[in-house]
């Protein structure tokens, strides 16, 4: 009767507070430079050290510039934050992949590709996109800095158990429809608060057929509908992905691990608090038109009219469209855009680059478009080179930058100027996310590639 989430949660229960939260053991703490400084200083102020340093992996990603990483970071505060993480890692003997370290990159890209995220684990990080790691069958969720301090101090966290939701997507995806589109479709249907209080498990034909990188994209976006986290039960695709990765179990440990991992699925009679069903055949390439990830639609559709919005939400809706410079009832196809960003923990992996390259191969980027092409890690960057994707992109007029979170949230200098439109493969289109006044359109790497070629919002299926 248990769901996979229940099984992993219950297995990690250290103790429970009467009428209160559960003390949960955490197998993996990922630490980046933005949400850890105050946690480390809090720890030091208590005269404590990390309880289990070997379970903690640190790397800067949010502030890192995507060019000239061998030079000192120009922005003083960014530089301080990145250095503070390095100092804290050194002081406490924590594994740290600094800038230019061959394993450096966006933390939610680096974890899985190194076999640091494994099925059945509980994983936390001071970052809401920690949900990404659920793709490998782990219970992974974002936490605040105070909670990072808790995990540093005790390798445990206090959490109230969320409710469970299963989202099943059956049917098949049409050509040109990717995991990113599935995610944006689900969020549009669910709204940005629709899964608040729930931990989601994704199931169904479409999910089973998704590659691991597609699953990482899907789970990454779970937070955008308010879910505590999102996960997918491990299967052959998971095991094939993990085999041979540096930190994954090896030899006899691999066999033991596999035997355990194969038990990680929801029981046939598992009871979820909510069940939602979608059909993959209904999904087309998506694009957002507003200022939250739930304001998305099929790329050939029209922006909803004011009348179709519940009255209580109309003021916020109008404000959102005004910010974007769009009108209710408008088509987005054909509208001019200024920037394209390929990257982020959502779509910064090799398959995303393959998809982008497949569309631009032999063609040229529109000269009016500024494109930021940012691999999610040095590992991804090496894969690009090995596959010759770097040559395809350069010939098409694109320049490949160095790894980091980059324009997703523009904490480094990759900022979209006010009023400019950016088609972005990242995860949030909030006001000012990519720079004050920046206008973000969230989409898949295929939609981003099509926009980069034409300088306009374009259905990628017309370029395939």
């Amino acid at each position, binding site marked *: 009767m248990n769901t996979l989430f229940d099984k992993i949660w219950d297995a990690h229960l250290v*103790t429970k507070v009467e009428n209160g939260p559960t003390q949960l053991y955490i197998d993996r703490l990922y630490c980046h430079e933005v949400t850890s400084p105050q946690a480390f200083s809090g720890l030091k102020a208590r005269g404590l050290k990390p309880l289990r340093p070997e379970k903690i992996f640190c790397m800067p990603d949010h502030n890192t510039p995507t060019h000239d990483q061998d030079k000192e970071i120009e922005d003083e505060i960014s530089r301080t934050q990145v250095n503070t993480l390095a100092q804290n890692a050194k002081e406490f003997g924590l594994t740290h992949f600094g800038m230019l370290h061959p394993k450096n990159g966006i933390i939610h890209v680096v974890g899985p590709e190194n076999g640091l995220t494994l099925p059945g684990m509980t994983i936390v990080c001071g970052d809401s996109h920690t949900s990404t790691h659920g793709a490998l069958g782990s219970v992974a969720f974002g936490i605040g*800095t105070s909670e990072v301090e808790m995990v540093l101090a005790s390798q445990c966290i206090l959490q109230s158990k969320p409710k469970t939701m299963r989202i099943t997507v059956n049917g098949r995806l049409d050509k040109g429809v990717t995991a990113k589109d599935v995610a944006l479709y689900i969020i549009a249907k669910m709204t940005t608060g629709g899964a608040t209080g729930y931990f989601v498990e994704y199931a169904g034909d479409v999910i089973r057929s998704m590659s691991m990188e597609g699953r990482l994209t899907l789970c990454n976006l779970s937070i955008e509908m*308010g879910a505590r986290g999102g996960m997918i039960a491990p299967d052959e695709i998971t095991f094939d992905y993990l085999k041979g990765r540096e930190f994954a179990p090896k030899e006899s440990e691999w066999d033991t691990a596999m035997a355990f991992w194969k038990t990680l699925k929801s029981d046939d009679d598992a009871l979820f608090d909510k069940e939602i069903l979608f059909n993959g055949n209904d999904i087309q390439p998506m694009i957002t038109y507003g200022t939250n990830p739930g304001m998305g639609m099929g790329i050939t559709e029209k922006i909803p009219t004011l009348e179709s919005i519940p009255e209580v939400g109309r003021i916020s809706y109008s404000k959102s469209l005004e910010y974007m410079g769009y009108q209710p009832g408008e088509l987005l196809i054909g509208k001019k855009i200024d920037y394209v960003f390929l990257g982020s923990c959502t779509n910064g992996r090799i398959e995303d680059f393959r998809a982008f390259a497949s569309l631009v191969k032999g063609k040229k980027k529109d000269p009016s478009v500024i494109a930021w092409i940012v691999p999610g890690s040095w590992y991804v960057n090496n894969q690009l080179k090995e596959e010759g994707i770097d040559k395809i992109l350069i010939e098409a007029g694109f320049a490949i930058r160095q790894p980091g979170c980059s324009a997703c949230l*523009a904490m480094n200098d990759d900022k979209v100027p006010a009023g400019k439109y950016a088609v972005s493969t990242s995860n949030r289109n909030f006001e000012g996310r990519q720079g004050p006044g920046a206008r973000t359109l969230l989409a898949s790497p295929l939609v981003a590639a099509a926009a980069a070629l034409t300088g306009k919002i374009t259905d990628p299926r017309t370029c395939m």
Partner: protein
Amino acid sequence: MTSTCVPLPLENVDTDQIIPARFLKATTKDGFGDNLFRDWRYDKQGNQIGSFVLNDPTYSGQILVAGKNFGSGSSREHAAWAIAGYGFRVVISSFFADIFKNNALNNFVLPIVVSEPFLASLFNCISKNPETKVEVNLADQTVINTALGVSEHFEINPYKKHCLMNGLDDIDFLLSNKDKIEAWETENQQF
């Protein structure tokens, strides 16, 4: 406590608005109150935007009243620091995003969930009379719109309530269970 309120009748206010990313570079918890709702309070030249509620002296108080789904988006605890730093002790809404709710509680800011009718009528009262006072009683878990004499019961996790009322610390609690942590590690397979 009893206080007047600052009304923000917008839905889906995300943590990027509460505290924009460029302010996350700090390495301490200080000064975040100055940057609360920064890009709604100040224009690019650094001038106050008169129409934004925090710049309107008509409204003041330790209670922020916000539209539903307050605090969505990024897990940045800096959002809670900004709200606490500015001087708010309570946020009232009909719906909060989970991570923000937790961060608020961990920083002694009380998120109170009220029904949509209560919220709507509170916004109404405040717009008619900016001096409208709200009374919050944590022990009883009640919130009262004193203008109408209408009260509502609100939910709060008993453990969090206990911590808030007694200024207690989660880390002391967790570490007091060190033997249980070690017992768990001995009994459970870890990779």
